[in-house]
């Protein structure tokens, strides 16, 4: 096979007019992706984007690759069939918090536990956009929307906790205000063998504007984003003055000056037990507190499509290739002359 052709952002942009609201966070995610693709050294024809329904789900139309805009919530299931049938492809799944965690929650957790080779991007804007502003499964308690005039009474999902609980082997979080960080997370997720999920905090400037301002604005990030770096003590703050300790299995934010640097938790994304990663995912239960971003977990487990292919190969080894004539005679037969 010939070398992968050199491509540019333009090669990865389709001829379709992008139709998100002006100012939507989705634009910056799309740009980050179109700029990243040439760096991944993959072929456009071997790349497939599958989506469900929602604003985020329009994503495949704008990528000049293969793509399917399917139905609400079902993209992980459709992508699973495609990835099982065609392990040679790079299959991406794109969806929002309603698509992936509400109507499609079941498919998402099962895709994660199977560890099928999918790169799943969950654009979390904590609101329903395309249906014009109802609360979502990640909206905070008390959220006033068209369908919750007296405030939401639903406990929200923490997508990172859900993914870790679903046995995901790669779990990361990023946000739409930092292209470099997004690209790094997307690249890591893409290179991972198995199901990889990246939660992207994404601003919906029409129905939930500024939901992440307190943590993702440039001047807030140092103090409010806890960057997880493998092998490094977990520290944040303008001068790294705060950190994370694990006390009796629970992650706690501490002042470094008080506890000393040696007791800070050293992040290990490859830890086989997901408990510490889960505990870290619980550090922030709103978007106004210091919130961890980066790779929570990245472990190796056998990829599903590989297991499927190896069972087929093993069956062919023991039984030989399929012989229809023999199959029809595999039950007792008799001859009439």
């Amino acid at each position, binding site marked *: 096979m010939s070398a992968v052709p050199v491509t540019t952002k333009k090669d990865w942009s389709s001829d379709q007019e992008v139709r998100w609201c002006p100012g939507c966070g989705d634009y910056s995610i799309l740009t980050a992706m179109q700029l990243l693709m040439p760096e991944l050294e993959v072929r*456009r024809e071997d790349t497939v984007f599958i989506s469900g329904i929602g604003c985020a789900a329009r994503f495949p139309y704008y990528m000049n690759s293969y793509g399917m805009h399917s139905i609400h919530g079902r993209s992980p*299931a459709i992508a699973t069939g*495609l990835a099982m049938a065609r392990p040679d*492809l790079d299959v991406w799944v794109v969806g929002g918090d309603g698509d992936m965690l509400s109507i499609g929650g079941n498919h998402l957790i099962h895709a994660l536990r199977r560890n099928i080779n999918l790169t799943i991007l969950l654009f979390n804007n904590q609101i329903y956009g395309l249906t014009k502003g109802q609360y979502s499964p990640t909206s905070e308690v008390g959220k006033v929307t068209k369908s919750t005039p007296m405030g939401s009474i639903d406990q929200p999902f923490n997508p990172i906790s859900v993914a870790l609980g679903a046995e995901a082997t790669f779990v990361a979080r990023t946000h739409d205000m930092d292209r470099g960080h997004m690209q790094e997370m997307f690249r890591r997720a893409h290179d991972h063998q198995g199901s990889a999920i990246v939660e992207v905090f994404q601003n919906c400037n029409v129905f939930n504007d500024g939901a992440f301002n307190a943590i993702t604005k440039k001047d807030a990030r140092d103090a409010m984003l806890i960057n997880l770096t493998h092998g490094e003590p977990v520290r944040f703050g303008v001068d790294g003055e705060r950190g994370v300790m694990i006390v009796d299995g629970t992650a706690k934010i501490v002042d470094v000056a008080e506890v000393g640097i040696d007791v800070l938790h050293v992040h290990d994304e490859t830890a086989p037990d997901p408990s510490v990663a889960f505990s870290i995912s619980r550090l922030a239960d709103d978007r106004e507190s210091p919130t961890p971003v980066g790779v929570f977990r990245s472990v190796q487990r056998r990829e599903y499509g590989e297991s499927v292919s190896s069972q087929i190969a093993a069956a062919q080894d023991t039984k030989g290739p399929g012989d229809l004539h023999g*199959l029809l005679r595999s039950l*007792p037969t008799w*001859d*009439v002359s």
Partner: protein
Amino acid sequence: MIAWWVPLSAARRVRFQKTVYLREGTHVTDIVDRTEGVREVERIIIRFAGDSGDGMQLTGDRFTSASALFGNDLATLPEFPAEIRAPAGTLAGVSAFQVHISDHDITTPGDAPNVLVAMNPAALKADLHTLESGGTVIVNSDAFEERNLAKAGYEHNPLEDNTLDGYTVITAPMTSLTKEACKDLGVKTRDAERSKNFFALGLVSWLYSRPEEPTMLWIQEKFKGRDLVIAANEAAYRAGNAFGETAELSASRMTVRPAQLPAGTYTNINGNTALSWGLIAASQQAGLPLFLGSYPITPASDILHELSKHKNFGVRTFQAEDEIAAIGSALGASYGGHIGITTTSGPGIALKGETLGLAVSLELPLVVIDIQRGGPSTGLPTKTEAADLMMAMYGRHGEAPMPIVAASSPSDCFDAAIEAVRIALEYRTPVMLLSDGYLANGTEPWKLPDIGSLPSIDIEFASELNGVDSEGREVYWPYVRNDNLARPWAIPGTEALMHRIGGIEKQDGTGNISYDPANHEFMVHLREERILKIADKLPPLEVMGDDDADILVVGWGSTWGAITSAVGRLRRGGTKVASVHLRHLYPFAPNLGELLQRYDHVVVPEMNLGQLTKLLRAEFLVDAKAISKVSGQPFTAAELVTKIQEVAQ
């Protein structure tokens, strides 16, 4: 002693020969022809009934296999409760297996059984009414004790009062004789008891002169490595055999000679196995791998089980998290160039509806298999019905036409599966394949087809650009159409043909999203037209029966057997009648309308309240009348004879 048996090769291939072989280790002086003096009859219908835990399905299945290898034509009807083990001894827990064996071509599991084997009082209570008057009842008398009688609702022991007056009754203490036969084998008493179904099988096999060897071989293979179980089952079978010899039951003995069937190699097959093999055959014919996405549901699960065994054919099977993921994964595989299949029953079709609409819009091949059962809701999971036709036709939002193919007999599921795949691939459309619980589990001898005679399915993936954009550049358009009005199938991985498809309305040709009113009107008509166009290449329907008949019986699905048998009987009795059976429910074969106009009366036996009848009336303005049955059981030929005669008068 000498017995009928059949020589067997290691490959379990059995060639029936009408030869009496000596069994190893027997003495020549013992030779007696076991069938000498045995009354010959054309056919027998036997119904095995017992508790769910009594192994009646297995007993019936073994009797059937032995009869198939003996050369009889046959048809079977397994009937079992939805509960895995309903409370022991109750009417709810009765499991039955009816088999019809014959020396001539038959198409149904029979009307009223001639013989009822009842392993406990509940089985007798539940099924005695099905027996022909004067028929034979074989009972396990050990089970007719106070507790079991009470559970079955008998105040008096029916073996001792006049309940069975007029029947030939054979009572055998099957449990105690089985225990006795096993006592020196080192088998625990409880385990020995469990072999009593083999006692029943041994007795019935003796009464109806079935060869013993296939059953013995089966026992040895099935329980390989469990020597005690093998010994117990063999001992129980032989004890049943010996009971017949010693209890002076010779007067009740009879045999059914092999049937004169067309020359060829035969196997005894049920519908779900035939359907699975048909899918594999279609995959071979098309040269494309098979992908099955499925969620377990009765009575469709056996297709998932069967296909899972054949990964060496490159078959991928996926047990999905739910019905929606099952069809979603199949559609994803189809998008990738595999033959996407999903199997389910009615409740699953209801869940798959939205994805079916997507498949209609995407115009990708997909085969959706509905093994129908009694509904609505959970309904009768283990009983048959054919009431999903309207759902197959219309069970999607919007105008979402889908071809429908129906199987007519267990072995026909093989051909129906190939036809469904052919249409799906050639016309790039989801196809609904309808079978039902009766076909799924019922069996019949099947003359194996010559592989070379199977229909060819020629499919090419798109590899070329096919359009020119407004700036004069060559591009790939996903909705350009061929003569069949099918769009090209460009699978991911194909260089330069990158494109996007989706469920939003699109412009024909370019495939670009379009909300234009005129375009939607055009596309709705086009999707209808392209499915109707399938009829252009369908073979015309052939009518069976009298040229000058007044009555046309129109059938679809599993009613074929009963209709064929009933029409045969009516014609032999002098009634002028004809029948036609529909393989394609949408679109109909091109000559159906013209056919319907030829007859004064059109009747449609259906296991629903008249769904095909409504379609025929709506489409062709004929006064078609339904003959309905919705009891969870298939039609018997006798029922249809009566109903059709009513029309004739």
